[in-house]
C-alpha cells in the first residue's frame, strides 16, 4: 500500500495535520510555499482521504481534517455533549444564516418576538455569529452575519450549502413579507378583474 507522494503534497498534508485551526489557501502557502499547485494538492488529498476514517474537508475556504461522521458513535464521549441551543437561538441562527446580513429588527420581524439579549450573545460566544457593520438606514442598526466557524461547525462548504436555501429562495420565503405581498398583489388584482368580468 506504500505509495510515493510528492513532497509538496506531503507538506500540505503535514501542515493541515498539525494546524490548530482550519487553514485558508493563503495561510497554507505561508508554510508550504509556492512549489506546487496548492488547490490540486488539496483536491488530491481530499480524494485520497474520502472514504477513510479521516476526511479532508473545505469549509468556507478553509481546510481541515476531521473524522468521518459515521464513526461518531465510536469517538463521542460523554463530555463531548454539545450544549443544546434554545429554540430561540436556533431560529435566530437560522434567520441570520439564511438572510445575512440582518439587523436585530429584521430578526424580530420574522420571529414575531423581541430577540432576548442573551440569544445573540450565545451565538456570538459560540463563534457562529459576528456583527457585520451597520445598515445605512436611519438609526444605522448593527447587522449580523455568520462566521467561517459557523460553516466549519455545521459542515458547510459555503452558505450555498445551507440546507434547502435554494428552495426557500425560489419559494420567496427569504423575501420580506412586503416584497412577497407586492408580487401577490399584482396577481390578485388580475384575479379580481376576472371575477368582475
Amino acid at each position, binding site marked *: 500500500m506504500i505509495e510515493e507522494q510528492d513532497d509538496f503534497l506531503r507538506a500540505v498534508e503535514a*501542515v493541515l*495535520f*498539525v*494546524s*490548530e485551526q482550519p487553514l485558508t489557501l493563503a495561510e497554507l502557502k505561508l*508554510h508550504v510555499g509556492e512549489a506546487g499547485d496548492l488547490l490540486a494538492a488539496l483536491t488530491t488529498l481530499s480524494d485520497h482521504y474520502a472514504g477513510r476514517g479521516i*476526511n479532508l474537508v473545505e469549509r468556507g475556504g478553509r481546510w*481541515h*481534517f*476531521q*473524522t*468521518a*461522521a459515521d464513526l*461518531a458513535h465510536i*469517538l*463521542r464521549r460523554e463530555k*463531548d455533549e*454539545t450544549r443544546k*441551543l434554545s*429554540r*430561540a437561538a*436556533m*431560529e435566530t*441562527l*437560522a*434567520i441570520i*444564516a*439564511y438572510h445575512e446580513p440582518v439587523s436585530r429588527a429584521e430578526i424580530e420581524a*420574522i*420571529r*414575531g*418576538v423581541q430577540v432576548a439579549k442573551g440569544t445573540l450573545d450565545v451565538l456570538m460566544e459560540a463563534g457562529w455569529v459576528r456583527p457585520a457593520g451597520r445598515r445605512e438606514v436611519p438609526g444605522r442598526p448593527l447587522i449580523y452575519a455568520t462566521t467561517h466557524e459557523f460553516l*466549519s*461547525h*455545521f*459542515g*458547510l462548504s459555503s452558505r450555498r450549502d*445551507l*440546507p*434547502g*436555501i435554494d428552495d*426557500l429562495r425560489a*419559494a420567496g*420565503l*427569504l423575501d420580506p*413579507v412586503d416584497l*412577497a*405581498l407586492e408580487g*401577490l*398583489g399584482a396577481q*390578485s388584482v388580475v384575479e379580481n378583474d376576472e371575477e368582475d368580468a
Partner: protein
Amino acid sequence: MDDLFTPPAVPRPETLTVSFESWEGPLDLLLALARTQKVDLREISILALVEQYLAYIEGARKLKLELAADYLVMAAWLAYLKSALLLPREAQPEPSPEELALRLQLRLQRLQAMREAGARLMARDRIGRDVFQREKPEGLRLVRKAKWAASLFDLIQSYGQIRARTQPVVHMVAVRPVMTLDEAIQRVGTLVGAAIDWTALEAFLPTGQDGPMARSALASSFVAALELARQGRLEIQQEGIFEPIFLRAAVPEPTAGRLL
C-alpha cells in the same frame, strides 16, 4: 402564636400564575395552531385560525392565566381581522382584510421556514458531536525573527545624550546684588542717630536702587532696625499691620529700656 417578627403571610391567590412561556410570542402560538389545521401553510384558513386563537386566549383567561400584553394585542387585532373578513366587501377599509390575512399567512410561512431550517442545520454533522478534529494538534509555529532598525543618527544622538548626561555639571551661582545685614546695621545705625522725629523705614534706604537690590536693602534694613531696637539704640513704631514702619533714635530712658 403571634410573633412580631413573623413576616406577613404571602397571599396565595387561586390564580395559577402561568405565563405563556411555552409559546414564544403570539406568532409562535399562531404557527402551532395553524399546523394543527394543515401541513401546508399556504392552504390554511385564516378565519379558522383566528377562531382557534381567540378560543385559546379565552380559555386561558378562564383559567386566570396571566396573559402577556402582546397576546392580547394579537387577540384584539385578530378579532378586528375576523370582523373585517365577515363584513360586506364594499364597506372595507384600507388595507383590505384579505391583505391583512395574507400578510399573517406569509409571516407564518416565513417563521415556519426558518424553524425548519434551524432544525435541519442542527441535524447536520457537527464538529464535536458527529465529526471530530484532533484533540491537541501540535500547532504551526511562527518564529518571529527580529530585524532591528537603527540609524546612524540614532547612534550618534544617543552617544551625545550619554555624554551630555554624564558630564560633570558645574553650577554657577550668579552673584546677585544684595545689601548684607552688616551693611544695613551700619547704615541704619548711623542715619538714625540723627533722627529725633519718627522717620519712615524707607528713608533709610540707599537711593537710586531698584529691583532686587531695593528689595534686599529694604529687607536687610528692616532686620537691622530690629537688631538695633534689640540693642536699645532705636525705637520702632507701626500703627497697624502693613502700615508704614517708623524709626527714631532711642530716647535715653534707662528705666523704660530695662522694663522692655
